[in-house]
């Protein structure tokens, strides 16, 4: 048979783990970044929220290192 959901949950793909970190582990930084975009979304340009994303990215990298 094909893997059941419980089995699939234990063998998460790296992208799945990454996804979880963006929404739960680093939700505070994600929210800060989102708010920054929201404040400028009529005139978004490259690196408009660079600082916020740097914090978000750092959190994600840290979370991905931990198993």
């Amino acid at each position, binding site marked *: 048979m094909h893997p059941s959901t419980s089995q699939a949950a234990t063998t998460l793909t790296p992208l799945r783990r990454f*996804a979880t970190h963006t*929404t739960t582990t680093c939700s505070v930084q*994600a929210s800060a970044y989102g*708010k920054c*975009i929201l404040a400028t979304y009529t005139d*978004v340009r490259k690196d408009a929220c660079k600082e916020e*994303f740097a914090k978000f990215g750092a959190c994600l990298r840290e979370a991905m290192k931990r198993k």
Partner: protein
Amino acid sequence: MSSSATLRQVLRARPFALLSSSPINIGSVGPYQVFDRHAKRLQKDRSALREGGARSRTVDYVRDEVADRMIERMVDIKRKFKSVLDVGSGSGHFSKLLEPETTQKVVMLDSSKELLHRDPDDAFEVEVERIHADEESLLSVVEPNSQEAVVSCLSLHWVNDLPGVLVQIKETLQPDGVFLGALFGGDTLFELRTALQLAEMEREGGISPHISPMTDSRDMSNLLGRAGFTLLTVDVDEVKVAYPSMWELMDDLRDMGESNAVIGRRNYIHRNTLAAASAIYKELHGHEDGSVPATFQIIYVIGWKPSPKQPKPLERGTGETNLKEVL
């Protein structure tokens, strides 16, 4: 000259990316090509095979909901058909709802063989026939003037030549035959579209197509009129679905066989861009309970092939009741 030279360069540089795509002849004359039909067929086949079809069945919810709303429009037509042709039937979301009171038989036609044969015949209440063929060349498998009713439930949004397919549908219909369709409208997935655009803009400094261009209701009535249908009915409806986050939405879209198939799409999005899009999606569109909405806009159309038997408006000036007395 120069364009073929650059194409050759591209072919040499990136043979892997082109393996899954159909050869698109840039020099040929024909309908404008927006979608990669070959990639779309592969996506649909794969979606039907994933986990033995289990994933594909879990994500039937949008199609089942729309099929359910479309069957209401079908039973409003007080006729009993010998046969109904379901163009782009997929696994038969609409066909499954047809009852013996409406039709004796349903003919399902789809370009994805795996999806077409996903569900066994006993899931249907009426006799089923399956044709594996490309919806874009309908007239090569269906005789003109042969159908009493043609339906299409959420498949025409991957057709390159929508006006051409509508003309073909009209041709396959008998006079006074009916076409009933449901298509995704232009507001479909606007949340995902805007989130990805903002994320790409801010992270990478540019945007690329991730969500297909889709038709809107005004275009549909024009196109149906142009294809030669009469007594048109077009209406718009929405299906809103809440997801835990953008990631679940994207997984489900893939399992529906609805991944991106726009020609010239990027085959991959950088992780950082996806993370940014997920954050933006939630802040821009998210609900208070933490879930995020996805909108599916549906355009329902009904059109009839002209026939002298159909009711027509009376000549000007033949009215006998004075409206002043009525109002």
